[in-house]
Structure formats: C-alpha cells, structure tokens
C-alpha cells in the first residue's frame, strides 16, 4: 500500500501514527454529519449506560422504551417513548393493540414515521456505531454484487419485509414479542443494568445478564462481520434482519421530510464516490441520474454521501415531498451503472 503525502507518492508504508491519524480522519475525510451523528450515538449510549448516576432524570430505560426528563416536563410525568416495532409485536402477541402505550408510541411515530424516517439507524442506534468499527468504509464498484453499490432488486427488497412478517407471526405463535425480546438494539442500551448490578450488588445474575446481552450483541456483530468478509454482503444485519430500522425504511423513507436531497444534479460527474462511501450500498448515481431524492428504504440518513461529494450535489435536509412526476432535474443515462462489473 502506498500513501500520498504532499501530492507525491512516497512508496513507503505509512507509519503507525499516521495510520491512526488516517483511520480517525477517514477516507474520504469524515465531516460534520459523521462527527455529529457519532457524537449523538455516543452521547445517547453513555446516557443510557450511566443513567443511574443521575437517577435516570435525563433518560431512563432502553431503546425498547424510555422516559425522558422524568419529573421535569410541565404537565407530564415524563416524555415517554416506545419502539414502534415493539408495539406491533406486542399487539400481535396479545392479539390486540395496547392502549396503555399509545402516547409513548405516538411520540416515536411522529418523530420517525412522520418526520425523520430512518434517521434512527444512522443517528441513534448503538449497533450502527458498533458495526462501523469493523466494516469497510469504502466499497469499490467492482466488489461482490451485494457489497458494491447497487439498486435493490425485487428479491432483495422483499426479504426484510418477509422477515418482519415472520417476526410478527412468531410473536403470535410464541405469545411474546419475538424480535424485541432478543433485539441487540435494546440490549446494548440496557448496559446500565449490568453496571448497576455489579456496583450495587443487585440480586443474582449480573454476570449471567452480562453474558446474555453480550451474546445477543455479539451474535449480531458476528453475523454482520461474517456476512461482509466471507459472503460479501454489506450490513447484512441492518439491511435484512433488523426490523426496527427497516420498518422506518419501508414506510417512512418514502415520504419523510428529512432526506438526502439531490440539490445540484447538473454538477454530478458520476465519480461514484458517494455510492462507494454509503454504508448501505445504495447506488446514489442511479437516483441522481433520475433526478430523484434518495427515498431508498436502506438510507440511514447518515449524510455520508453528501459530505464526501466533492461537488456538493447532495445535501441532507428537509424537503417536503414533491408532486408525483416532477423531477429535480438531470438526465437519466440508461445503463451507466452496468459499466462497472
């Protein structure tokens, strides 16, 4: 591997310090969106994990259900939140939607379903943070088919939906919320239970608990890593298995005001840098060439594509849905993505 310094190729392997620096900087360099969302993910994870230090007044619970600012919200005991898919599974398991949780789930519904789309995955979920530590940040266009940026086919697009139905069916059969019970997303944010268990010597099982949750998170991570490095499927977990993000993706990403906007399609030179940087293997040039905003169900609204584009073609922000048929501009060039085998 050679590196570039001062515009010249040095022909030598970079030193360890420089490699760390490069790793932190990212290639292409990380900019505001990535740093902002990493900060948000980390802060949320820390708030969840050390909630007991402030008796849970800031945040309490886990990503399955949480309470914000207990006792400090005028007129309410707290801002309640409950995961939408957990609510669906619970409805399936009890054969009727629960009325008790209606406010909690409404908050989440408005936030993600109506406003932010799959923002949850890119900015809140600790698993995204964890996965990103071990995955390739930049995918070449000649990588294996499911790794390289591509537009999803019919089969690929239906698998997550089918899995969601399977989870709901299993919830009915087993009589308990299936995915929610074993979800590593909620488990990881329940880290506080383990820390508390050790510090305060709470009855039993702090170790058992730690092992159980490490197992769940570990399985998700393991599956994801094996899929990427052995089978060449990038982000298997988030693209296919996890229903929490996919349900926002399939429903909300189609119309959510927060989206990756194609603001200057005429400036795009089809360098594919955005596509190659996308953690979810989305072929952005397909959208740019079609002059559409990115409404792909896979899009995490992470803004990586926007920040790596050298020409400012894309931007992450709010835009209300355009009337059908109206395009942002730009020319479609049939088959250009087939040029990259």
């Amino acid at each position, binding site marked *: 591997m050679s590196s570039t310094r001062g515009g010249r190729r040095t022909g030598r392997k970079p030193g360890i310090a420089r490699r760390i620096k490069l790793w932190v900087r990212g290639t292409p360099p990380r900019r505001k969106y990535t740093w902002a969302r990493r900060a948000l993910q980390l802060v949320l994870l820390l708030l969840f994990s050390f*909630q*007991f230090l402030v*008796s*849970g007044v800031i945040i*309490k*619970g*886990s990503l*399955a*259900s*949480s*309470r914000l600012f207990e006792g400090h919200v005028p007129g309410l*005991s707290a801002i*309640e939140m*409950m*995961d939408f898919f*957990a*609510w669906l*599974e*619970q409805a399936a*398991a*009890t054969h009727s939607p*629960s*009325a*008790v*949780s209606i406010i*909690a789930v409404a908050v989440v519904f408005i936030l993600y379903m109506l406003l932010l789309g799959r923002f949850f995955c890119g900015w809140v979920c600790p698993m995204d943070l964890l996965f990103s530590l071990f995955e390739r940040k930049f995918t070449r266009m000649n990588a294996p088919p499911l790794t390289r940026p591509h537009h999803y086919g019919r089969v690929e697009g239906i698998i997550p939906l089918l899995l969601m139905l399977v989870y709901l069916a*299993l919830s009915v*059969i*087993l*009589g*308990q*919320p299936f995915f*929610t*019970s*074993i979800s590593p997303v*909620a*488990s990881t944010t*329940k880290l*506080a*239970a383990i820390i*508390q*268990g050790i510090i*305060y010597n*709470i*009855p*039993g*099982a702090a170790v*058992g*608990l730690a*092992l*159980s949750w490490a*197992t769940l998170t570990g399985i998700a991570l393991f599956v994801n890593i094996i899929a990427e490095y052995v089978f060449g499927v990038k982000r298997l977990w988030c693209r296919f298995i996890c229903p929490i993000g996919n349900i926002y993706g399939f429903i909300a990403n189609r119309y959510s005001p927060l989206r990756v906007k194609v603001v200057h399609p005429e400036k795009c030179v089809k360098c594919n840098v955005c596509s190659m940087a996308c953690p979810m293997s989305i072929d952005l040039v397909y959208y740019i060439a079609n002059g559409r905003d990115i409404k792909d169900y896979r899009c995490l609204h992470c803004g990586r594509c926007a920040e790596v584009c050298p020409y400012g073609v894309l931007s992450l922000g709010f835009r209300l849905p355009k009337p059908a048929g109206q395009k942002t501009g730009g020319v479609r060039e049939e088959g250009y993505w087939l040029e990259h085998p």
Partner: protein
Amino acid sequence: MALAAPVAHMLGEGQDENASWGRGEDYYEYFIVDNDKEKLEYYEALGVILEYNGRKCVANPLVPDKCIAYTKRYEEDRFRFKPPAASPDFYSRCIRCGLCYFQCHYMGYNAIRLASLRDGLKAFGTPIIDDHIRHPCTLCMECTRVCPTGALERVLEEAKERARKKERKQGKETFDRTIIANYPDLVKKTRMGVALIDPDLCWAWNSGDCKSCAKACPFGAEVFDFLFTPWGVHTRVKAVVRDDGTIETKCVGCGLCVAACPVVGSAIHVLPEEEFVRRYRNFKNTGMSYEEYLKKILDVEDHDPFKAVLRAMEINNVFLLDIRGIKKEKIKTELAAERSLGESKTT
C-alpha cells in the same frame, strides 16, 4: 410456546416461570442428630428418635411416627416472582424494556432483577423478584407506574381513583399504597404470592413474642392474626384456601415479612399460589392441612403440657437456636425474647 419449549429446555433450568431455586421436590429439612452425640442421647432418653433413610432424626411430637420437618432456609426455598400487579398475559405484553428494573433501582429498593438466558427464553429480559431476604419489594408501585405496556397494571392509580370517587377527596391526595387492601379485586391483581409461616420455626409459636413480620407488613393487622397464649404470641397470615383452590387473603406476597423475620433463613416464606395451596393442604407431608396443624398445636398446648413443652422448648427451640440461629438485631423490642436468648447462638 410449543416451539420455544425445546429451545428453552436446551438453555437450561427454569422454564417453569415459578420454578423454585430449591433442589428437588422436598422443601423440608429434618432435625438429624447423627453427628451430635449429646443431642442423640438426650432425645433418645426422651424417646423421640426415629430412623430416616438410615439416619437418626427427631420425631414430631404432634405426629409421633414422622420426623419433624422444617421449611428449608429461604436461599433453598425461593421462587421467582413477577413484579406486583403483573397482568395475566404478562409475557405477551412485556417488551423487555427494563424501565421497571431501573425505576425500582432509583427508588432504592433493587427488588427487581432482569432475567438472563439462564431463566429461560420466555422469561429472558423480563423483571424478576427472587431475593426477598436482601431486597424485598416494598409495594411502592413505581414499577407499575412506569411500565409502558400494561404488563404491570396500574392498580394503585386505580385504587386511588376509586377512593377519590368514594370520598370525593379533592386537592392533594393523602392515600398511600395500603388502600389497595380495600379492594379485593385489586389485591388479587397485585398478588405475587402468599406468605406462609412455619409454626415449628416461628419464634412466636415457640414461646416467643416477636411479631416482626406483622410489623414489617404494609397491611399489618389486616393480613396478620395474633393469638396471645402463654406459649407465645401465635402469629399467622390470614389466608383461607377454598375448595376450588382459590386463596382468600390480603397478603400480596411482597416479601417484606421474609426480610424482617429474625430466624436465620426466615420462618415465613412467600410461595406462589399453587405451591401455597399444595403446602396448605398437606402441610409438611403430614396429611393434615395447615389449619388442622395449627389447631393440633393449640390443642396440645391446652391439654398436654408435657408434649407442648417437649415440642416448643426441647425440640423446636433447640433447632431454632442451635442449628438455625436467630438474628438478634432483627428483634427490635422484646426484652423477654432477648433475655431468653441468653448465650445461645446468634448470627
């Protein structure tokens, strides 16, 4: 459920949601005197030694052909309970969010722990209360308040609502958690288990004057009954088992009494309802119901002082003080009790 069972089985113990931590079927231990020559000779002289599995044990004066049995220590006879007011379809409703667990911790009680995989796939992630001695539930009902799904029902709010309607109370409310006891249906909803006192281990059934459990109980005399006799302040939990297996009692099984009992390993244990009915109907495998067993004790105390002394002073107290021990610091008021403890074993 059908599919989960084999998987849960593979994952080890505890598929039964109320499975005991105790080993095996036998929740009683016997007064074995094999290794204690002094006691063996003493009880042989009194003629109360029986053979049990090739070992020598002390007989029960009430049932002379049976060894006297004591409820095992709490650590070997504890059960997993769901938090108070768990709805009938608890496992379908609970989304394993942990809010109840965190809330219990912030209240400072730490009664709840979250189930790990060892507790079975079904229970995994749900709240469990299973350490009454160190961390009993105080019935603060905060966990039911924060539960987002109705897996824990808000019975305290319900009770307050009803009380407010009845008393037309306005403004700041003064109701506390014990108003739940006014509404039998809410008590039934809240119930985790029912407490059962072992009269052979209980200090108050063996010449003492203790009442620690009744003092600790949030419902006090609504749940406990006392009979003042020369043989101690006989204390019992008011509970009646009907023929159809339902239990009529105001005890909700919080476990505060278990924590308060000065006998090491506690003479009062909270049992799941089925287990309570089982032990109630055939107490200590004597064929007598709990009720009959207590009656028999009172009967003996009234009509057979020698047997009563033998039972209380010579056998039960020896077991209580020498083998189990009594936690002196848990007995708050009774001078007499403290005096009578003398130089006996205290832990």
